[in-house]
């Protein structure tokens, strides 16, 4: 799933609120793995990004997760003989939209890239390399999951399968484009190695839908916000890749639409109290993860002229509004208390990071972490328990005459 992967990799956390265990301490382990996957294409120039700076990469890089799911259950879900809810019209329409391939000729590079990369130095250069790496890994993980789904569903539902394949086309294109960007910095991600070496996280199909939907939509809002901001403030346009974001993120938005249709075809994922709880949970974990991640790398956002927290709140609010078109309940992110809670989480998270960086023995570190983790968990829980907003597609309210358009 491009989804959570996009979050964990694009926006990187050290403390990822995750199922059951809110604090993941895999980063260390994964950093090691990750650093081995970055190979320099020219030994001499590696040094520029290497040496001291290289540690910078390591510290901030967090498990860019790859996802896998129960493919047999997926096959059952999309078997048209078992599931009569599958709206063929909607999927045909989506297929047509993906076949149209609006961005077929969009991802063409020019010499601006290399020139911009050569101009970048010091911390900014490091930040950009990290940004490209995380984005590339995220897109690539989407490619892997969609590709496999396309392959597995071919027999039971050729239309859905073909859409997955076309989405994997988009993700491959995006990943390839980002990796080309890395080559300007004389680096390349060894995606073949990543495919084999990376740990795959398992998610049931239902959770894949929630998470992927959210990550595609939040991806759209992040990209379009950056694009429009830079269009209005061209003096911050320090790397040409952002100019591609407007068309690029339309792909993300369409991918989200497809997951929206998939969920509509599985109303059991949307229409009971459990679905409401899960929907709120996924929204919250995605928003919190992004907020904490981005607040750790304000240098990137400030480097392109954005105020990190304002940028994030805008993205969260817009994503939440979009998500309310399909999820049966969403958190009330526009309540000022929500942001106050997020800000408290950032503070706690910073303390946690400081513990990690201290010279204490690991035993002491763990002890010091306990109250902080507890505080973080209670903030997250409090945010989760805030009165939510009831929502959902109007398709499910078709017989409610009070809906006014």
């Amino acid at each position: 799933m491009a989804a959570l992967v996009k979050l964990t990799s694009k926006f990187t956390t050290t403390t990822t609120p995750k199922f059951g265990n809110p604090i993941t301490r895999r980063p260390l382990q994964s950093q090691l793995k990750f650093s081995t996957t970055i190979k320099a294409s020219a030994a001499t120039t590696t040094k520029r990004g290497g040496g001291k700076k290289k540690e910078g990469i390591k510290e901030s890089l967090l498990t860019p997760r790859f996802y896998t799911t129960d493919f047999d259950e997926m096959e059952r879900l999309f078997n048209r003989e078992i599931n009569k809810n599958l709206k063929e019209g909607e999927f045909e329409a989506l297929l047509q939209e993906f076949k149209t391939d609006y961005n077929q000729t969009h991802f063409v590079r020019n010499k601006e890239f290399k020139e911009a990369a050569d101009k970048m130095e010091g911390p900014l250069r490091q930040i950009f390399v990290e940004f490209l790496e995380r984005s590339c890994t995220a897109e690539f993980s989407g490619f892997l999951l969609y590709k496999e789904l396309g392959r597995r569903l071919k027999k039971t539902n050729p239309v859905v399968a073909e859409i997955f394949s076309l989405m994997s086309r988009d993700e491959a294109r995006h990943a390839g484009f980002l990796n080309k960007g890395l080559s300007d910095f004389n680096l390349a991600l060894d995606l073949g190695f990543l495919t084999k070496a990376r740990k795959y996280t398992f998610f049931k199909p239902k959770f894949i839908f929630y998470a992927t939907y959210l990550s595609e939509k939040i991806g759209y809002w992040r990209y379009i916000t950056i694009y429009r901001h830079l269009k209005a403030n061209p003096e911050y346009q320090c790397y040409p890749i952002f100019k591609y974001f407007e068309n690029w993120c339309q792909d993300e938005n369409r991918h989200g639409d497809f997951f929206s249709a998939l969920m509509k075809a599985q109303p059991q994922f949307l229409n009971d109290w459990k679905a409401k709880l899960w929907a709120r949970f996924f929204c919250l974990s995605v928003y919190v993860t992004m907020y904490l991640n981005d607040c750790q790398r304000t240098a990137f956002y400030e480097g392109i002229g954005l105020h990190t927290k304002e940028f994030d709140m805008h993205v969260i609010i817009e994503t939440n509004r979009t998500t309310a078109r399909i999820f049966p309940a969403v958190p009330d992110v526009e309540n000022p208390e929500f942001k106050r809670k997020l800000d408290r989480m950032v503070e706690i998270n910073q303390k946690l990071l400081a513990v990690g960086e201290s010279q204490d023995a690991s035993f002491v570190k763990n002890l010091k972490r306990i109250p902080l983790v507890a505080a973080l968990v209670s903030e997250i829980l409090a945010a989760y328990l805030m009165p939510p907003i009831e929502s959902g597609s109007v398709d499910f309210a078709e017989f409610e005459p009070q809906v006014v358009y």
Partner: protein
Amino acid sequence: MLTSAATLNSTSLGAFGAISPTNTSRIRLQRPQSVSLCSSSPHNLLKPRIIFTTTTTSSGGSSWETATSVKTAVAAVDSPGPAEKMQQQTSTKYYFLVANAKFMLDEEEHFQEQLFERLRYYGEQNKEQDFWLVIEPKFLEKFPKITRRLKRPAVALVSTNGTWITFMKLRLDRVLLESFEADSLEEALAYNPVNLEFEKPENWVAPYPKYESGWWERFLPPGSAKHNA
């Protein structure tokens, strides 16, 4: 797709490179099919007699277009008179989504991006435009069930491509979908002139300016842009 293939191959990335060619070649095979579907249908709709033959021969393809064509064909068969008359009487089917103007033109900014993206694509493909925005369309009079639930002024997205309208319904969600037949484009897109002005949002917190009011003029029925400007 070619660009993508080039990008992927030149990256030469082990498994990544190995997987992608199958992906690209699959798509390359499909493309001609999709292109012919897109480019032929609206054209056909304007020439009912061609539709008649195409429908009988083609099975499968896009279900929407087929359904449309069959209806037209049946209407043509039912109507008495010589062949010329038959041709005159057949009409084109238009699909539309409608909601209040504020939702369509002011609040849903991604909608603007999508319309311009599609316009760009049509330009690249030399494809004639088959979608329009209609402010206060006259055809709404025929849909009391819709108007009862509609805030005014209303704006409709109208297209001869029903498949695309189905997709747009999925995207916009808070809209109503219907279709009608009309003998000419002018008739289909007729509207009651209204001046649209949206209040500026009280607290605009996005780190960028809003799309400029009037962006929609490019999509209004031919010849009407000045009227609403």
